[in-house]
């Protein structure tokens, strides 16, 4: 047995590693930095679950229906059913390993209401649900580390997968300390590398989620799915370093969106959608803000200092700290920002990709959220996906033999060294910056064929340039070699958005504003003979 290789140590990667270890498998858990630095710690709002005896008439069926409907019926019913049916047990599991959930006045785990859901089913831990779950899972991983079943490898980045004859046998890992590539053989590899933030520059998420693994594996023949579906969060605050999320709670407490027109405040959401207009779903609010083509503000000041301090203290602190804005007196300037990626590796219900023994879980995989994700479902999916993949791997038997990949290692080590040995300092950051501008402009909230074609042309040019440049040797090598993968993924995302000639969920096209029956299936993209081939999913998942 070579054991299991898990790439990425956020909530999904840790969940996979823990379940594998529980089932007696040996795991190597690879990530450049410890789990405390993963994007998972940033999740604030909560995790959805339906527990028996919830006392509010919520049922697994309504969770399933909400999830399918939220995703514009692109997600598979069977998979979503599994996710929702598993949610109660997952909540209990997280509690049992010590997650500090918030409780109500009766000492029962508390729930809050989240957008797009028929019942209150979002369990939370104060204002840091993701962080509290991560802290508990880290302890649990540590328990298996002590038993010798999980080994953490830090300073290690994915380079590429060792694939032969449609089967994955492990991965090449770049060690940032030794500066060398290393081959890690495994019976199964689980990708858990999160979203694709780097494609867009500043987003609400972590700089560590760059989409490289999706781009690189795509070039190695792995199919990707639903890449055009990208969730924008309508209310984020621009700062010098990133776009900060201003949570829905601000609008939930009564916050009002407006722009100014000839000295008059126009409460555009209320004018168009009535009193509850400010609380419309994320995609609708984002689109309206975009279409307003004006500076939009979110006002909560009228709620008064007392209410603000009591109900939304994190928002008050965030605006004061990063922008010096006193929200008890001034409005918050807001704009939509890229927030979540529904698309990623195409996987079956066991989380396996089209390459045998290569699995994907968490935000890097595309399976449960269809064309749009419900808040609170991604943390659930991260744990559920991790468990599901582990269970499947543990259930497999057979002799695993890997063909020799030694030649690969030497060749790639040489290649990397050559690219780095140069006086030229071409900053990869520049190309990444140009890419982000292209993606923000041409793959925004409202898309059209002409812009998408322009975007594809620009990214093709960047790909051509990136192929020729040498690496700036003063930068961490991963930052350099990841560029090609990131650009490739961007090209695939644009291709999918161009392919889907309709509007559905988070994908809105001004040239095809209607939802069309002919497109009621997920998009699958593959790379064959140097071509990006997008199409609708076939019955066999291909």
């Amino acid at each position, binding site marked *: 047995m070579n054991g299991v290789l898990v790439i990425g140590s956020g909530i999904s990667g840790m969940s996979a590693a823990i379940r594998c270890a529980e089932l007696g498998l040996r795991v190597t858990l690879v990530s450049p930095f410890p789990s405390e630095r993963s994007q998972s710690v*940033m999740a604030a709002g909560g995790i959805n679950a339906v527990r028996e005896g919830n006392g509010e008439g919520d049922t697994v069926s309504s969770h399933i229906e909400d999830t399918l409907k939220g995703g514009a019926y692109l997600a598979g019913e069977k998979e979503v059913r599994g996710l929702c049916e598993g949610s109660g047990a997952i909540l209990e599991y997280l509690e049992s390993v010590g997650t500090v959930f918030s409780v109500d006045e009766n000492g029962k785990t508390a729930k809050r209401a989240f957008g797009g859901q028929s019942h209150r089913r979002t369990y939370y831990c104060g204002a840091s649900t993701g962080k509290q779950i991560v802290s508990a899972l880290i302890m649990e991983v540590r328990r298996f580390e002590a038993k010798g079943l999980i080994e953490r490898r830090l300073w290690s980045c994915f380079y590429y997968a060792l694939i032969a004859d449609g089967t994955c046998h492990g991965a090449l890992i770049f060690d940032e300390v030794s500066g060398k590539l290393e081959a890690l053989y495994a019976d199964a590899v689980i990708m858990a590398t999160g979203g694709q933030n780097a494609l867009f520059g500043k987003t609400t998420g972590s700089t560590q989620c760059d989409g490289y693994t999706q781009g690189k594996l795509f070039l190695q023949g792995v199919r990707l799915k639903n890449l055009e579906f990208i969730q924008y969060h309508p209310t984020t605050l621009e700062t010098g370093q990133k776009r900060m999320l201003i949570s829905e709670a601000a609008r939930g407490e009564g916050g009002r969106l407006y722009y100014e027109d000839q000295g008059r405040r126009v409460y555009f959401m209320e004018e168009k959608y009535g009193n509850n207009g400010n609380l419309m779903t994320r995609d609708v609010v984002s689109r309206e803000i975009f279409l307003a083509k004006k500076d939009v503000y979110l006002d909560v000041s009228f709620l008064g200092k007392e209410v603000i301090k009591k109900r939304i203290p994190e928002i008050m602190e965030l605006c004061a700290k990063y922008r010096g804005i006193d929200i008890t007196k001034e409005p918050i300037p807001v704009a939509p920002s890229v927030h979540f990626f529904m698309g990623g590796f195409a996987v079956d219900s066991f989380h396996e990709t089209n390459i045998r023994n290569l699995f994907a879980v968490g935000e890097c995989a595309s399976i449960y959220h269809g064309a749009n994700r419900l808040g609170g479902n991604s943390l659930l999916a991260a744990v559920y996906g991790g468990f599901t993949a582990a269970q499947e791997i543990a259930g497999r038997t057979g002799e695993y033999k890997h063909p020799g990949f030694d030649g690969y290692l030497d060749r790639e080590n040489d290649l990397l060294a050559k690219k780095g040995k140069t006086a030229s300092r071409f900053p990869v950051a520049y190309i990444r910056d140009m890419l982000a501008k292209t993606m923000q402009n041409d793959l925004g909230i409202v898309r059209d064929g002409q812009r998408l074609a322009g975007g594809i042309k620009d990214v093709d040019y960047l790909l051509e340039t990136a192929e020729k440049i040498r690496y700036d040797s003063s930068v961490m090598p991963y930052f350099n070699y990841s560029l090609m993968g990131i650009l490739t993924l961007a090209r695939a995302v644009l291709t999918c958005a161009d392919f889907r000639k309709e509007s559905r969920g988070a994908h809105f096209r001004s040239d095809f504003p209607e939802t069309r029956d002919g497109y009621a299936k997920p998009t699958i993209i593959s790379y064959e003979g140097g071509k990006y081939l997008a199409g609708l999913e076939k019955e066999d998942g291909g």
Partner: protein
Amino acid sequence: MKVKILRQVHPGSKPYWEGFIYDGPTDISVAGMLDHLNYNDDIINDKGKATGRIGWECSCLQGVCGACAMVINGVPSLACETFLKDQGKDEITIRPLRKFPVIHDLVVDRSAIHENLKKTDIYIGEWQQGQDRDLDHQYLAAKCLKCGLCLEVCPNYADGRNFYGAVFANDCYIVSARNEKKSESIKNSYGEHFAGGCSKSLACVDVCPMKIPTLASMAKLNKKM
């Protein structure tokens, strides 16, 4: 604005100071400033010579992941929530945390934190509701970023060989609060690697970006001793 950074190319190589002139916006954080310096065409030092880009670590850029801990104008801080305008002078000096081995420039290897917790079996196992029902305290303790700032300012923490510091004490508290059965068995590690060595300077409490009440954690654990 003048910026001085203590740099180091590789784990074993010699550290050296290098100066830069920063002329970007001043209403940003040190993280924003480092990004700004790195994003120029060529990165030029204050002698007008081209040099290597500055290495530093980040992830969340909003003070919740602990990646960007470094020493800024003598104060151990998170770069993404330390602002230029609050520095009170036109010069800024940055160095990596001193208590950890340097990997590259401002990037340090903090794995000793995790290794020490691993060696001493600091994990909950199975949650057993015990006498400690102070969920607020448990919640705050579980917010620990493992950023290492508390160790940087601690007069007793050297290299983590014997004394493990506040970060260790808080995780011990969580385990003892969330698993009553285990609270007995971690007493020894807590005594050996924390209580015995702590001189209560409490600098760790002031520097903690999550405002974890370490003193309260200690008080509860000491009671069990």
